[in-house]
């Protein structure tokens, strides 16, 4: 046996996952409360004790970790045009596993500067202009950033003609600056991987120390990455496969948490119908979006706002007064478990609507246009209608009773025909809650990570 350990320092729970590399199998998982306020090792040791009760004391050859503790990786970004470089900057930040607090476009104002100071991001991503395109905007924004009395690192990934000027302005103001390739070197060409690599480096060097995670880092042999970046890596591996093993192809993954809902899609998202004109920025194959207003506890009222109280009542079978009462109860007591029949019904409704709203915002849509040359479709965003796998993860979903019904909310709905969601899909549930661990493992042993995911994700039939 060759056991290794993966650790996920979550905002609430620290999860540990043990894997045997020789047998390419999962040994066990355990979790305990995260203790970032005192010593992060306390929570980790508690989780390890629980794990050893299940699988015995093991000598781990390696320990890898990811983290979303202490607020995760908080980022603010800015670009020039909202749908172009500002959107590219958002995509870059989300794909790096960040929590995107705010995205600005055009010129930053003094008010914006004050707001940025209050938001106090861990990293700022400064973009704007294609290579050789507009440079005045990014230079002006660099000047505004130079005046903010905080020392967050700034990644400059805009018009290369302006990069050195921005670097000079910011360095002279005492900022830590990282210049990398433009997120949009040519019009409508997305180039987000270089910026993401730099963001990850900064996360390793600096953020980990600042967040009290370094006490744990001596125990860890490598790779601290933000948890969402680990999940994204796991999903991309599961979709694409390795040189030796095929992947599952196109898929989407849904993670409904207490405060946010994360949606991942692995798909080119190309039009599935003829006569379609695609508009907007090209989308990355591995795309992540986060809905900050939708979650099972902290953001439960956001679900009611987005999907309507009527829908919550319809799905839960509760009357409006009772549903409202329970909603305010769970948003105040965020550790409420669905222990009564009523709460279980409410959680079912919340989870279903979180999945539906998250996917509606993530997937692309089509509009019909009548032109003198005939009927044409105009597509914005990804067409996911041919995707045939839905992965369900997140503590509130993996143990839910009616998980197939909840997963079905991710799919095509005759009431919303313009939303390009999957027509039908096999539902795979991350019952052991191992996706972030497999994302970490994928950085070293992709074949083993893929084997374990294929084995441990349990099929719950096909939803339509």
């Amino acid at each position, binding site marked *: 046996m060759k056991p290794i350990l993966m650790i996920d320092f979550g905002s609430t729970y620290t999860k540990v996952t043990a894997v045997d590399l020789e047998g390419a199998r999962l040994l066990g998982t355990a979790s305990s409360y995260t203790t970032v306020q005192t010593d992060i090792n306390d929570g980790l040791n508690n989780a390890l004790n629980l794990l050893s009760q299940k699988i015995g004391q093991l000598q781990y050859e390696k320990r890898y970790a990811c983290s979303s503790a202490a607020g995760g990786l908080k980022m603010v970004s800015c670009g020039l045009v909202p749908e172009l470089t500002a959107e590219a900057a958002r995509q870059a930040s989300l794909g790096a596993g960040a929590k995107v607090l705010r995205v600005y476009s055009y010129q930053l104002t003094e008010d914006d500067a004050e707001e940025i100071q209050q938001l106090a991001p861990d990293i700022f991503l400064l973009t704007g202009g294609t290579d050789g395109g507009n440079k005045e905007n990014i230079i002006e924004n660099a000047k505004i950033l130079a005046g903010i009395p905080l020392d967050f690192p700034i990644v400059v990934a805009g018009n290369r003609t302006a990069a050195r000027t921005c670097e000079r302005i910011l360095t002279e103001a005492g900022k830590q600056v990282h210049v990398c390739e433009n997120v949009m070197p040519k019009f409508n060409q997305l180039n987000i991987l270089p910026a993401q690599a730099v963001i990850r480096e900064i996360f390793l060097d600096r953020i980990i120390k600042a967040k009290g995670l370094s006490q744990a880092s001596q125990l860890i042999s490598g790779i601290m990455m933000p948890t969402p970046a680990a999940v994204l890596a796991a999903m991309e591996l599961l979709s694409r496969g390795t040189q030796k093993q095929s992947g599952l192809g196109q898929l989407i993954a849904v993670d409904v948490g207490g405060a946010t809902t994360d949606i991942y899609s692995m798909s080119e998202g190309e039009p599935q119908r003829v006569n379609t004109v695609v508009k907007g920025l090209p989308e990355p194959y591995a795309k992540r979006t986060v809905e900050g207003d939708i979650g099972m506890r902290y953001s439960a009222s956001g679900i009611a706002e987005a999907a309507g109280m009527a829908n919550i009542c319809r799905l839960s079978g509760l009357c409006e007064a009772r549903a409202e009462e329970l909603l305010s109860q769970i948003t105040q007591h965020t550790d409420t478990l669905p222990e009564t029949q009523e709460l279980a019904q409410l959680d079912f409704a919340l989870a279903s609507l979180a999945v539906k709203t998250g996917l509606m915002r993530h997937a692309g849509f089509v509009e019909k246009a009548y032109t003198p*040359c005939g009927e044409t479709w*105009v597509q914005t965003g990804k067409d996911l209608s041919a995707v045939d796998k839905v992965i369900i993860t997140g503590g509130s979903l993996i143990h839910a009773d009616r998980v197939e019904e909840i997963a079905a909310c991710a799919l095509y709905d005759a009431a919303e025909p313009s939303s390009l969601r999957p027509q039908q899909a096999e539902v795979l549930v991350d019952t052991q809650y191992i996706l972030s661990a497999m994302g970490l493992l994928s950085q070293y042993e992709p074949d083993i990570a893929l084997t374990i995911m294929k084995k441990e994700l349990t099929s719950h039939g096909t939803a339509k």
Partner: protein
Amino acid sequence: MSDKKKLVIGVIGADVHAVGIQILYHAFEDAGFEVTNLGVMVSQEEYIAAAVETAADAIIVSSLYGHGELDCRGLREKCDEAGLSEILLYVGGNIVVGKQPFDEVEGRFKKMGFDRVFGPGTPPEETIKALKEDLHVE
């Protein structure tokens, strides 16, 4: 970066004539311009967004289906609003309904703020010559 003059081109409105714009793209590139081709069914906002981001020197609007007059209204004003007051605006193709005297058509589009107006069947060379003149190339 190169000192090439930058153009944004596309077919405006609900027009899906995809071939001509490809030909123009290659003709302009070969003539030494850096061209952002927005393709077909381009809205006024898309021309402007692309021109802002790429710091374009000119927007060249194509229209072949006769509705160009409606589609082009307000483009100059929107450019002014977006800070592109210096940008050169060209329009060309079958830009009006039916057969109308070209000088009248030209007058109406110039009044809308277009710097140059080209009728049906204009060879690309003519537009290139005008661009070079207006943008002081060579």
